[in-house]
């Protein structure tokens, strides 16, 4: 792996590592999430959008979108005033903008459901969900947007959930997008 910049922070229940540069070779067991966009920039998404990991497993986001910058930012009041949608005793993270080819990693230690978003692309529905361990599930997490976030049950069942391309899912995302634009 070639790394031109690296920073690692250990704060309570989360470990952060920002990596910039060209990465190659072993992934070291990290769970990978790609940041993607289509050719004209009209559509952006995380792939997978839902991921189940074990406590202490590293998750790494890499920007594979040649024409845009993206972030992986935890839903938390520290970040653009968003509501907390993560375990209360976990520490929020923000990757800052990642250019094409750049990566950012966190290691989540506290079991629970973590929702995150891309700062410039939340209105476009670029959000994701990570389930750490096997937390008790009691209905949708606060602030859930069905059709935009995969359900916790589906993530636990399938391990990794890619964005749905069904007509119903596309319609729900379009409705969410329009509501975000005109609100």
């Amino acid at each position, binding site marked *: 792996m070639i790394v031109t910049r690296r920073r690692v922070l250990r704060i309570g229940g989360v470990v952060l590592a920002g990596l910039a540069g060209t990465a190659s070779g072993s992934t070291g067991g990290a769970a990978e999430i790609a940041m993607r*966009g289509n050719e004209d*920039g009209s*559509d952006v998404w995380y792939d997978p959008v839902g991921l189940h990991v074990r406590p202490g497993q590293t998750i790494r986001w890499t920007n594979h979108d*040649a*024409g*845009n910058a993206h972030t992986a930012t935890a839903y938390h009041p520290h970040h653009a005033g968003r509501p907390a949608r993560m375990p209360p005793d976990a520490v929020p993270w923000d990757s800052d903008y990642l*250019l094409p080819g750049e990566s950012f990693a966190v290691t989540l230690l506290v079991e629970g459901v973590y929702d995150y978003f891309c*700062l410039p692309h939340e209105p476009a529905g*670029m959000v994701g969900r990570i389930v750490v361990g096997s937390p008790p599930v009691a209905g949708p997490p606060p602030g859930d947007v069905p059709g935009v976030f995969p359900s916790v049950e589906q993530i636990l069942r399938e391990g990794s959930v890619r964005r749905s391309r069904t007509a119903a899912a596309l319609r729900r995302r379009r409705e969410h997008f329009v509501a975000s*634009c005109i609100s």
Partner: protein
Amino acid sequence: MRTSLAVLALASLFASPVLAADGVAKAPPEGEYRKVSELVKLPDFLPGLGQLYVDPATLPAGPFLAYDHDGSLVSTIYMLPVADLTNKDKRFDDLAAPGGAVDHVDVYLNAGHPGVEMPHTHVVLWHVPAADEVRVAK
């Protein structure tokens, strides 16, 4: 003879393409334009658009001036937030258009990016033929 020359001169005037204003045909453009990748964290060359310059005072609409790898102007782009386009009280008037003759126009949605974070519409005035869009394809 004099009349013929005058007609010829007039005809040639109208037949000439409208040239880009002085100072914007080649990168970097003169005036208050700044390279977008130096204003916000974005790739220096955006596939499909090229290398962008904008006067920060005109954000978010622009115009953005887009250049190919040789530094030649290929398009002028306006970025119009979707929320503004659905707001009857919002208008975009008298946007500058320094790029000269327009060959064709593309209009499409963009999900947002640093600098213009909200979903918006790209209105692209191409100053080159469609076949030459490949100059900024990647």
